[in-house]
């Protein structure tokens, strides 16, 4: 049953994603990519969980790599998206 619930959540979330993202204008497609990239860095949650229960050297190494890569995604993704969006301005004349 757990799996079925997970699949349900996945399918519904995909539909929400389609609805929300089709409304993003082409001019913002690059920030959309980098921003959604940062969101896929949510793997950090999984990385922290496996790091917390690692009990072998191999487990530690894998967990360290997972946390590092996910953190690059999260911090880098949100920061660079913010940098880009700050530049999108409408000039009055």
């Amino acid at each position, binding site marked *: 049953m757990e799996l079925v619930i997970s699949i349900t959540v*996945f399918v519904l*979330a995909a539909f929400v994603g389609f609805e929300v993202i089709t409304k993003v204008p082409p001019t913002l497609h690059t*920030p959309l990519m980098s921003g959604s990239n940062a969101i896929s860095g949510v793997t*950090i949650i999984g990385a922290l*969980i496996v790091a917390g229960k690692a009990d072998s050297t191999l487990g530690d190494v894998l967990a360290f790599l997972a*946390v590092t*890569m996910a953190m*690059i*995604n999260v911090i880098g993704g949100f920061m660079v998206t913010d940098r880009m969006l700050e530049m999108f*301005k409408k000039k009055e004349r």
Partner: protein
Amino acid sequence: MSQEISALIYLVAAALFIYGLKRLSSPRTARSGNQLAAAGMAIAIVVTLINSGISAWTIIAGIIVGSGIGAYLARSVEMTGMPELVAAFNGFGGGASVMVASAEFFQNPDPAVQTVVTIALSVVIGAITFSGSFMAWGKLNGKLPGQPFGYPAQKLIDPLIIAVIVVLSVLLVLDTGGSLVLWILLGLGLVLGVTRVIPIGGADMPVVISLLNAFSGVAASMAGFVINENALIISGALVGASGLILTNIMVKAMNRSLAHVLFAAFGGADSTGDGGTTSDKPVKSASAEDVAITMGYAQSVIVVPGYGLAVAQAQHVLRELADLLEAKGVDVRYAIHPVAGRMPGHMNVLLAEADVSYDKLFALEDINGDFPRTDVALIVGANDVVNPAAREDETSPIYGMPILDVDFATTSVVIKRSLSPGFAGIDNPLFYNENNLMLFGDAKSAIQELIAAVKEM
């Protein structure tokens, strides 16, 4: 903290991601949307740290190292280098999913069948994303050749790898103890990412990056299935949907199918068309002074930027030229083809960096009807997206691709280094049109000459 409470807080984070993406529907609200999504992520991370403890050195070291690298990359990247950076971030996302799934595999002594299935999926998809993204990264920053690259037996190798992956995944599910099988799966995923991306040319990168973006999302979702965490499943699905939508837009803008981009090296030996037959016709080469006069006395100018603008870093001088023309009363707008540049929205970011107001940037379908009423179409570093052969010549390999109808403007001006054809090796009949002027030169220096000439008018 009880599991129920942390699950509810994760739900808040996921809701913030969705709301943040929703605010990306307008440049006005986009920045706050991204900040809300970041806040959601911060909440989720803090809750997880409280729950699983921060005693492990791996957590502290990983957070410090990862944040440092991420912040450095985000701050130091040039706007022209954005495609490489996004490719690299896609790769790290895929890599993280691989690591989470394999760590779970080694720590869970007796995983359920469904867990093993999702571990296999997560490892394979994540590995393809990782190596494929870094191949794309190398092609985009020129460390690897950007040309389409074919090799013997290419059409046989990939199906073979996929077949082996399927067989090994079944083995992994049947006999859950096989860590060697997992390593081989990981390795094959990495190989497949390389063999899949290496044959694809630079100009197809918008499709590849979008697709890898979708893959990184799906990999995150699969990792969510592995550790049974809805926050990952939801966020991964959102990103997967986003990447698929962008992939679809890019593929449509090239009038090609996804399969064609992935499996046919465009412009390779098999590309046909009438290249060469028109090369003997005369072209009108103009001086910067001629072009400056044409534009200075125009009422309306539409600028069509392409990848050459990014290569020459000419966005700032272009804005300066537009300012001068506007001061003379010329209406200047920008027409942006969906596949101009190396990733979706690449040109828009460059022009935003150069302080061009976003309400002057128009998508293909919004501005194409205006070319017949436009005095000058100025094409900077673009080629195939303005090739009339796509509209008229049924034998052309790009026939049917939607293009910007610059040849309908009273005068078209092409800034280009030489008459050499674009990525697809297709001659551009636009260059030989009666009403077309060629301004030969590097985009940046040509525009600087134009600025000087307009100032002297």
